[in-house]
């Protein structure tokens, strides 16, 4: 009978690399990926001959074989992709840890690179399912799951998140300012990070409340940024990590979760104020690591929308259902508060790499090298995109 606790601390993230984040990178996504991988290998002090595993987000446009070709990886024995989209961020790490602990790979590189602002903007169309244009006509024939939603005008992630936000506000009497507190916290942290898109642009609760409505009740400042950029990490065994350049960021726990409501962002099968996929991940993480939410010092919570930060505070056990909105208020999730969240700015203010920046900032926090360092941070929770089948991880210094 397998015991998932056996993987605890067996692997570590030994290298991280992040390019500049911008509205127009001026280069291809493949180039961004190669640059990020280069940075991560140098950060770790690992040679490219050592790399024998390659994993990616399913939505990334670069294939593993093109990365191998352009990075000079000649002996890759474990490769693949994990989704869905941002939900797969820590899912890639789950697969890497499974490979390394099974002895099927020793050094796994994971990347995510996108021209998410100058190229295809996921916020403008339903990125989770495809639709096709009839040849020569202006009719969009929505297929698969989209056929039941798109004809009614619900097409983009912010519109989908707005349905859930309305429901949450109704059920728990949450206020606009409580959602604003999430946006303000992420923006505040971005002010310590010169690489953040919103560096130099602090906001107040009033700025959030006055920002334009994207889909009532979601405002502009409730939504993730879109940006160009690339990130990469190198994962090796704990022993190997101890021989390399940086302090190892030990992977105490990592897991995927898919509770079967089949709830991708565009499905609405049940109450909607809870995130059962996240709860399934949370259960596994705390069991694997042998810790409780009280032991977490800092958290990088995937923030496609302010609502999902609130939902994850509940799902990951930092407060009870319905209390997440109040938990976010009064600086509680800012540096110096009870649980600092998204210390490099998050998707809301640093840039949007579908969860890679959360992983990278999590590593910095447990190394002690974050620009918004939580003093003596020992455990950092990192989550992937919620409201889709998801994943998460606990890192330890």
């Amino acid at each position, binding site marked *: 009978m397998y015991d998932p606790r056996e993987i605890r601390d067996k692997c570590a993230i030994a290298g991280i690399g992040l390019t500049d984040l911008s509205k127009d990178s001026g280069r291809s996504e493949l180039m961004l990926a190669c640059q990020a991988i280069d940075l991560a290998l140098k950060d770790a002090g690992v040679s490219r001959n050592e790399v024998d595993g390659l994993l990616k987000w399913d939505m990334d446009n670069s294939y593993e074989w093109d990365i191998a070709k352009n990075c000079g990886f000649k002996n890759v024995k474990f490769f693949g992709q994990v989704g869905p989209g941002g939900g797969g961020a820590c899912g890639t790490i789950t697969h890497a840890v499974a490979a390394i602990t099974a002895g099927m790979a020793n050094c796994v590189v994971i990347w995510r690179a996108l021209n998410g602002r100058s190229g295809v903007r996921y916020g*403008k*169309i339903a990125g989770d399912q495809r*639709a*096709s244009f009839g040849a*020569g*006509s*202006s*009719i*969009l*024939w*929505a*297929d*698969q*799951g989209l*056929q*039941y*939603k*798109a*004809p*009614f*005008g*619900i*097409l*983009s992630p912010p*519109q989908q998140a*707005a*349905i*859930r936000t*309305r*429901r949450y506000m*109704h059920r728990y009497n949450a206020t606009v300012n409580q959602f604003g507190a999430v946006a303000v916290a992420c923006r505040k942290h971005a002010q310590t990070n010169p690489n953040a898109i919103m560096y130099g642009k602090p906001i107040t609760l009033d700025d959030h409340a006055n920002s334009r*409505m*994207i*889909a*009532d*009740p*979601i405002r502009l400042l409730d939504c993730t940024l879109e940006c160009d950029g690339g990130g990469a990490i190198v994962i090796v065994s704990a022993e190997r990590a101890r021989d390399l350049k940086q302090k190892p960021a030990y992977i105490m726990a990592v897991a995927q979760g898919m509770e*079967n*409501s*089949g709830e991708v962002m565009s499905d*609405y*099968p*049940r109450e*909607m104020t809870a995130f059962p996929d996240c709860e399934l991940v949370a259960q596994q993480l705390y069991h694997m690591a042998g810790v409780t939410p009280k032991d977490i010092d800092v958290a990088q919570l995937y923030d496609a929308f302010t609502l999902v930060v609130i939902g994850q505070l509940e799902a990951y056990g930092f407060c009870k259902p319905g209390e997440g909105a109040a938990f976010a208020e009064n600086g509680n999730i800012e540096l110096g508060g009870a649980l600092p969240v998204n210390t490099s700015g998050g998707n809301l203010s640093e840039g949007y790499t579908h969860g890679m920046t959360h992983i990278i900032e999590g590593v910095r926090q447990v190394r002690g090298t974050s620009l918004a360092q939580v003093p003596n941070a020992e455990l950092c929770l990192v989550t992937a995109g919620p409201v889709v089948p998801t994943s998460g991880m606990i890192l330890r210094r």
Partner: protein
Amino acid sequence: MSEKPMVLPAPDRDSAEYWEGCKRRELLIKHCLGCGTFRYPPGPGCPECGSLECDWVKIRGEGVVFSFIIVPVPTHPAFEDKVPYNVVVISLTEAGGVHMVSNLIDCRNEDIYIGMPVEVVFQDVYEGVTLPLFRPVRK
């Protein structure tokens, strides 16, 4: 070609009967013969018990508004002349509360509220395409 831009459903083998039902002004919901659970969208298997045995149940189309949004800015040309428009999630009373996405008509956006009783009404929007919409229940 300067056809008016539209977004329409492309029926597949799992949904063909559902969309044909709409053309006949019938709201058909898939019903599991293994455990009795209703499901929407009408996928081939039951999320509750996994059974592939099912039938279609015709319902009157009564429900309540479970959530809604008002969209001020279109994200597709098809909706440029509709903004600000509403999108609703309806809980279908006769189908165990199963949810479906639609639009509310015969109603001002400002008057929509969670819990509003609604009923289905069918609209032919294109050749061979009928959409199920909802309107407030008339007293």
